[in-house]
């Protein structure tokens, strides 16, 4: 346990928070990389996935891409990009790797969410004369919202983790505190850096869970349905319930 006390001492020492190698600077780098890359990935993946889900095509691609994303080691891609000619352009290899690894969860979850939107509701909306755009914006996306947000959340967690690894080939971010600690055999610093990274990842996840609850366009309806289904006996077909509540 001594190491963890030493790590705490490291964290509470003011000198470790200031300067170019300090926690504040590294944390800023990490957050900057995370936000920028998550934004780029969302801007690329969400329109594609929502459109594919809307027209119902490319399902095999959308699902398999997340399997492929899991099989490719982040560390290897980071090193390969750093050794390539791109490596001369500062943060560019890191940003490319971060965006690449954020895409699969976004694509897969959004696509699956769109396809799993209740077909009866979608058909009813079409029967009411909604156009394709109205259907997408008012019916399918609100219904798919929880899974879209799950995708955003796992992409964010993935980006935080990959940004940490970017420190190994010499990128910025909190991972540098860990690698610097390894370089000088300073275990308290390694543990302190790791604790910071873990805390940041959990914080990002937590913030996005709260954001999902607040932004969910159907949160009232979902909650009331959940209460209702809890009161229904086990084995009762839940799909019947919406038909009763639409009155």
């Amino acid at each position, binding site marked *: 346990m001594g190491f963890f006390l030493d790590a705490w001492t490291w964290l509470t020492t003011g000198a470790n928070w200031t300067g170019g190698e300090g926690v504040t600077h590294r944390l800023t780098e990490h957050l900057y990389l995370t936000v920028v890359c998550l934004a780029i990935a969302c801007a690329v993946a969400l329109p594609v996935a929502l459109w594919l889900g809307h027209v119902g095509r490319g399902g095999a691609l959308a699902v398999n891409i997340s399997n492929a994303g899991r099989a490719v080691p982040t560390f290897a891609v980071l*090193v*390969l990009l750093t050794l390539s000619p791109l490596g001369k352009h500062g943060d560019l290899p890191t940003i490319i790797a971060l965006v690449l690894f954020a895409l699969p969860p976004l694509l897969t979850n959004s696509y699956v969410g769109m396809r799993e939107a209740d077909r009866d509701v979608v058909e009813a909306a079409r029967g009411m004369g909604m156009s394709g755009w109205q259907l997408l914006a008012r019916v399918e996306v609100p219904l798919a919202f929880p899974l879209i947000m799950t995708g955003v959340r796992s992409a964010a967690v993935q980006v935080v983790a990959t940004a940490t690894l970017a420190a190994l080939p010499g990128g910025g971010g909190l991972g540098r505190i860990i690698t610097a600690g390894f370089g000088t055999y300073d275990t308290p610093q390694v543990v302190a850096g790791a604790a910071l990274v873990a805390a940041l990842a959990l914080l990002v996840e937590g913030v996005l869970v709260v954001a999902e609850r607040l932004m969910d366009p159907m949160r009232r309806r979902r909650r009331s349905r959940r209460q209702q289904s809890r009161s229904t006996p086990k084995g009762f077909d839940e799909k019947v319930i919406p038909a009763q509540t639409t009155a």
Partner: protein
Amino acid sequence: MSGVSGVSVSSGADGAVVLAGAAGKAGGDCLSANDWICAEYVRSRSQELTDATVEHVGITVVSVLLALLIAFPLALAARRWQRAYGPVLGLTTVLYTVPSLAMYALLLPLFGVGAAVVVTGLVLYSLTVLVRNILAGLESVPEEAREAARGMGYGPFKLLSGVELPLALPALMAGVRIATVSAVALTTVGAIVGFGGLGNLIYDGMDSFFRAQVLTASVICVLLAVLADVLLLGLQRLLTPWVRSGRRARRRRGRAAGRTEPSDGVGAAGGGGGASSAGGTGGVPVTAGKGA
């Protein structure tokens, strides 16, 4: 048949001759030129590559097997005691959120520098997927099947081993595949403590700017993941023959009735956890990969 195999053999030999010729002409220059692809590197360092691959596979297999051993009691406990359900799922999700580099670094003071750090980290990651998928599989067992087994006099243990586990097997195997493929990729990060299998080669190659070493190790790593996925898929097919014959029969019935099966291709992913179980906080979509 024999003609076809003969052709492929001779073309393979040609390829080897061409590669050897190129290496001979360049005199192993691809090493000094620091090319990305270098046959001379693969030839001269084959022992190093083999050792790294063996270490990589060893770490992955041990981790996934240990995780399975731990995940089973956890999942059963979470199902048996409602109060354990939330904490078990929550804890494994929290563990999954911790980035790999931080995970290994946090485990370092507990185990010291060694393979145990990497194996423990991988076990903790695999637990999330496995516990979740085992639970999803057990929950997908139809209540009628359970009732029928109880009516036939099955006790709790026989019910679990004879009815519930076989029916939960597709979801379980989907989890094992995801956990294994992730573990193969995450093992590389173990290079930070010197036990990363092929990751060690990538790490060294990064420091010495050795392109051929980095690319070769990375490619082998991806091939290992794909191979593991295919082997596990084959194992799943062997263990659950009724899934395929059932699907075929259903399709035939559907065609006979003159209607088409819903062709969403995602929701019905081999009886996997389905996307609904991804609605938790883990963020791992437990869609059974149909790839490969």
